[in-house]
């Protein structure tokens, strides 16, 4: 570790799924657990960043956690809300503004697919009126094109979902903990060809909080098992990338924001994608996990077919991906989702992941979120 590093000294989670508790209460639950994990009190936190997409202003949580007067900034950045809170916390520590900072994300969405408002995305009402404003269509069309270009098979899509539910069955905090067979996944209702019902994650509920500290503060607070956030990056889309809610695409195609965010994170960390021991990447649906593997540099385009068919992305494989069941098994509470990936990575690096522990003491973790209207946030975390 170097004095520039940012340590993660405490993690907390409220189980994902469907609950009585409000989204805010789930966030506060996660915050208290993160403080307990760090062995510190809310009074020790000097700065906080947090957000939710549909469950209220994060900063009002101080009325539950304690009115200590700390600066608490609300973050709203779609699916990268958690990632953006984390980057803000990271920057606050790197800049010297504070040395113990909390990043928090939580959410609680109604049942069923998201129902976004075209105007919020700069689109005419006709786009929603005529039935084009659905994230599910985008994911179906993106993987359809990808399968055509790179020879990914429908069975590989099914295997990604089966892995997610199997890993979810090993995770007490996951929403969907019932393993499923390939037949069940393939024969489920087709929602957006080639993707069936069980290849999609659902909007859900949950909360995650992380306590970050400078290396000096980590020492002062007696953090014994800290891991280090070596990089945190966020990128928006460039011209030519294929994004959700696009009434048109340019003739020439460019890389996605995931490509840029991952490159930036690996460069900042001074770590190569090939060094990653465990990765949590955005699996809004099966195809997204497959495409994001290549976009983030973890493999080449088309290589996924063999990696997945030979089990290399399973917990015991060469490149374990979404070891906690990912979005497919955990659902997607937008504000919490990116931080869940970091939570799982910390558990894996600390050897605390129990039945789903990646063998041989993984040392390098990677996380990736992607969302509307074309943003991505990545982290690199090491022991």
């Amino acid at each position, binding site marked *: 570790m170097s004095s520039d590093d940012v340590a993660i000294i405490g993690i907390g989670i409220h189980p994902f799924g469907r609950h009585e508790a409000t989204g805010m209460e789930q966030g506060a639950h996660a915050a208290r657990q993160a403080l307990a994990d760090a062995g510190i009190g809310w009074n020790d936190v000097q700065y906080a960043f947090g957000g939710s997409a549909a469950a209220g202003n994060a900063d009002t949580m101080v009325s539950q956690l304690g009115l200590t007067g700390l600066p608490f900034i609300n973050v709203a950045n779609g699916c990268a809300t958690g990632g953006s809170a984390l980057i803000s916390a990271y920057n606050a520590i790197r800049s010297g503004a504070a040395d113990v900072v909390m990043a928090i994300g939580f959410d609680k969405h109604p049942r069923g697919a998201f129902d976004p*408002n075209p105007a919020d995305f700069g689109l005419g009402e*006709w786009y929603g*009126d*005529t039935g*084009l*404003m659905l994230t599910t269509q985008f994911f179906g*069309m993106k993987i359809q094109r990808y399968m055509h270009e790179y020879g990914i098979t429908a069975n590989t899509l099914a295997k990604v979902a089966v892995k997610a539910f199997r890993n979810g069955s090993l995770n007490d905090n996951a929403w969907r903990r019932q393993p499923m067979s390939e037949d069940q996944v393939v024969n489920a209702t087709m929602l957006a060809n080639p993707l069936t019902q069980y290849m999609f994650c659902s909007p859900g509920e949950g909360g995650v909080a992380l306590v970050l500290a400078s290396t000096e503060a980590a020492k002062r607070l007696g953090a014994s098992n800290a891991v280090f956030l070596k990089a945190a990056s966020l990128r928006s889309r460039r011209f030519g990338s294929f994004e959700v809610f696009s009434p*048109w695409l*340019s003739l020439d195609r460019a890389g996605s924001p995931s490509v840029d965010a991952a490159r930036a994170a690996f460069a900042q960390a001074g770590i190569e994608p090939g060094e990653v021991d465990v990765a949590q990447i955005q699996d809004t649906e099966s195809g997204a996990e497959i495409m994001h593997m290549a976009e983030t540099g973890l493999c080449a385009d088309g290589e996924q077919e063999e990696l997945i068919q030979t089990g290399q992305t399973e917990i015991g494989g060469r490149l374990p991906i979404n070891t906690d069941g990912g979005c497919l098994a955990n659902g997607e509470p937008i504000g919490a989702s990116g931080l869940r990936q970091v939570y799982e990575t910390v558990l894996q690096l600390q050897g605390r992941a129990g039945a789903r522990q990646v063998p041989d003491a993984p040392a390098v973790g990677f996380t990736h979120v992607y969302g509307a209207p074309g943003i991505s946030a990545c982290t690199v975390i090491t022991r």
Partner: protein
Amino acid sequence: MSERKPVAEGLFTWPSDEPQLIGARCTGCGVVTFPAQRSCPSCTGTEMAAELLPRRGTLWTWTVQGFLPKSPPYKGPETPKDFAPYGVGYVELRGAVKVETRLTTADPAELRIGREMELVILPFTTADGDELVTFAFQPV
């Protein structure tokens, strides 16, 4: 159908025997947008000229919308009981742009990447009874 109104002004020429989508081309870098917009997201220029887009193109990718979309924002007339899946795709219009569009078929056997497609204007009656028309592409 000619008395029906378009779902939005400025999306396509209507009424017309040979309707066309209306885009805009950047006078600086040549990038085409659909619908027309006033600035170019590629070169950041602000000189855009309206351009009628080719009526034919090739299917670049596709899916089938398998469930009734939430309303709002969807304004279609279907109920969960009578909903029939509909096709959606991107059609590449040569020398111009790829446009996202409803397709006239939802049969995967008819939808093949690279297939020739043609613009059609179809009636779209909303759940509120508004008699509109919207654009779609059909296999040639």
